[in-house]
Each structure stands twice: as C-alpha cells, then as structure tokens.
C-alpha cells in the first residue's frame, strides 16, 4: 500500500502536468483563433484559384504544353512531394497521421520536400531522397515563403529535376475533423482536376491572352504559390486545432486522475488514523492489565 506521502507526491506531479497542459491549451486556443481568421481570409482565394485553373485547363486541352507534359514514357520518374508537418509535437495524432498518410502515398525512394521539424526528424532516417531544405518554419507561414517553394518546384519541373509535384497537408474540415490530404499540382492534369463529383463545367471557351504558352507561364507559378500558401495556412490551423484538442483531453485526464488520487489519499489517511487509534487503544489496554 502506498504511503500518504507517495500519494501526495504523485498528486503534486499530476497537478504540475495539469498546469502545463491547460496553459498549452489556452495558448493553442488563442493561436487557433488567429489561424482561423487567416484561413478564412485565404480560403476564398485558395478555392477560387483552384476552380479557375481547373476550368482554364480543361479548355486548354493540354495539347502538349510543357506544364501538362506527363512524361509517361520516362523511366525512373521523379516524384516529389511537399510534406507539411509541425515543428513541435504534443499535438495528438496530428504529426503521426500525416506521416502515415505520406508514407502510404509516397513510394520508397521518391523525393520529399519537408517542412516542419517533426517530419524532418522522421524521414531523414527513412528510405527517401530529400531535396532542398527550406528554412521555413511552419508556424505563421508567409506568402513570401510559399512563393519561394513554388518557384523552386516550378523551375525543377521545367528543368526535368522532378516529374511530379504534389503537396501533402492536413485540411481542417472543422476543429475536430482534421484529415491529411494530397493535391497533385504538376503536371497540370485535366482528368484529376475535373474529377467526378465536381460541379459540371460551364460551356465557356476561353481565349488566352497573349497566347496559351506565355499565359500558362504566368498562371502556373501563381497557381502553385496560391495552393502552397493555402496548404501552409491550413496546416498551421490544423496543428493548432489538434494541439488544442489533445491538450484539452490531457487536462481532463489529469483532472480525473487527481480526483481518483484524492480518494486513494483519503482512504490512506483514514487507514493511518485507524491504525494509530487502534495502536493507542491497544497500548492503553496493555497498561490497564
């Protein structure tokens, strides 16, 4: 049986953990609020750019343009994936489920571009080729950083350094529903973008100014920038949401544990008193004899 002091010590340590988790919860709640505001500002752009590109592409028809080039005959395809994890842990299943998702979708030996310290630590020992370390912290992503990544991907794609460019991030459907998602950005693909279930495309035939090729040279970098930035903002908001939920349940667990320990402590105290009383009684009885 644990002594009263053991129990008191445990209660103290649980109480300290509780203080940490509830502080972290408060912090991530505040950060989440901020991140959500940014997400709300970005989302219209993110969705509209995707929609616009989807429509524009369908009518471009992908007739051998360099951005549409699927390079099907090429052996040893170089698939590059941008994987966005958090810089820190203690966010419940956030990093874990994203890493698992990434492992499912990226074949061994493919190229990874990693953002976030957790992903870097994990994948650095795995069987992947890592390319270009962007010194970008995944907290408070800026549009400038997104442009840098997008420009890198675009130039690598054009020069043949990579043949596919995809991005894996966590999409925040709601505070409690976070799901890893993959978007294929390059090559532009008419089929994946106009996947079934999407609203049917209106019958608009666009004319391209000044001409198809130079327009796409302007369009694609903007599209990449927009999507990468959107993904970064989504990932950051998801991370905060995941951390908030995780810390909330950790605080609840700590509370429950404290309650249970209090009971055990009371019982131990009573037992101690009872045994003391019985010792006194026994002592007194011995004297009387």
């Amino acid at each position, binding site marked *: 049986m644990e002594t009263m002091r053991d129990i008191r010590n445990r209660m103290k340590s649980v109480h300290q953990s509780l203080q940490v988790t509830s502080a972290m919860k408060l912090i991530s709640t505040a950060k989440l609020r901020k991140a959500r505001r940014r997400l709300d500002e970005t989302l219209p*752009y993110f969705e509209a750019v995707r929609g616009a590109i989807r429509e524009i592409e369908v009518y471009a028809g992908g007739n051998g343009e360099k951005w549409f080039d699927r390079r099907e005959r090429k052996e040893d395809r170089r698939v590059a994936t941008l994987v966005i994890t958090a810089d820190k842990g203690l966010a419940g299943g956030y990093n874990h489920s994203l890493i698992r998702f990434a492992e499912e979708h990226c074949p061994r030996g493919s190229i990874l571009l990693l953002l976030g310290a957790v992903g870097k630590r994990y994948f650095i020992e795995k069987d992947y080729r890592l390319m270009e370390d962007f010194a970008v912290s995944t907290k408070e992503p800026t549009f400038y950083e997104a*442009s840098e990544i997008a420009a890198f991907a675009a130039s690598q794609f054009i020069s043949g350094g990579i043949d596919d460019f995809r991005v894996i991030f966590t999409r925040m459907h709601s505070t409690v529903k976070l799901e890893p998602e993959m978007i294929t950005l390059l090559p532009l693909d008419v089929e994946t973008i106009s996947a079934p279930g999407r609203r049917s495309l209106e019958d*608009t035939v*666009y*004319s391209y*100014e*000044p001409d198809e090729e130079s*327009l796409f040279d302007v*369009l694609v970098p*903007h599209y990449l920038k927009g999507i990468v930035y959107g993904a970064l903002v989504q990932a950051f908001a998801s991370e905060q949401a995941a951390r908030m939920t995780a810390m909330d349940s950790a605080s609840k667990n700590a509370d429950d544990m404290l309650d249970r320990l209090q009971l055990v402590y009371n019982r131990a105290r009573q037992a101690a008193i009872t045994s003391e009383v019985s010792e006194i009684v026994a002592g007194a009885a011995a004297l009387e004899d």
Partner: protein
Amino acid sequence: MAEFHCEILTPHRRLYAGNAEAVIFVTHDGELEILDQHEPCVMPVRIGLLRLRADGRTRKAAVTEGFARVKKGRLDIFVDAAEWDEEIDVPRARSALERASARLSSETLRWRLDASAQAAARARNRLAIAASVVRAETPAQSVAEASPQP
C-alpha cells in the same frame, strides 16, 4: 450602364466582391478595360493601377501581379496583393523602395536582381497611386501620374 459581377482576390483578403460597370487594369500589352459582355478570356495582370467603376463612382487600387479571368457576366482577378488607394502604407512602400534600390546596385545574381526590380516596381506603383490620392482634386493628372511603371 450594364453591370457584371467582379471579384478581386488576394491570398490575404478579398478586396472586392460585387457589381461593377467597368474595370480597367494593366495587362501584358497595356491597359485593358473590361465591360459587360466581354468575351470569355484569361490574361495576365501586371503591377499597376486598377480602376473599378461601380454605382457611378470610380475607385482606385494598387495591384501586383496575377491573372484575370472573364466569363459570362463575371470577372475574377487573382493577384498577390491589392490595396485601395487610401489604404496604401506609404512609409512601408518608401522603405521597400529604398531596400530594393539598394539591392539593385549590390546584387549580382540574375534572379535576385529580377526580384529586386519587381519589388521596386511594386513600391513605385504604390507610391504613385498613393500620391494621386493626396492630389485627388486633379483627376486628369492623377491618372497620368498613376500610370504603370515600365
């Protein structure tokens, strides 16, 4: 005048969403005015002045690069950044211009030079448009002054 729906979107905000009678902006070969019933088309948007006429009033905005899409009864403009003329942060634009000019004289890498030239063009555009607000009472001059930098 016939109206159409216009949206100006940036990654940071939705600058405008509503009806417009005419929108004028800078594209690859100079200024372009979009009116209702324009043919569906897609074109690049360059750094410059954007003018939007709605309810008989013309508003001006500084925009950076992006693209625009016209379809039936609708114009969408996607740019990296956009501000209305009265919102332009002049001290910030001025210091951006200084930084960019300094880089232009010290950098040697081609792509960094390009980036600095772009940054300088953005800052100059903002300053020119902001300056035209201050002297808003001379509209003819302000338009000329705010015309895009080459």
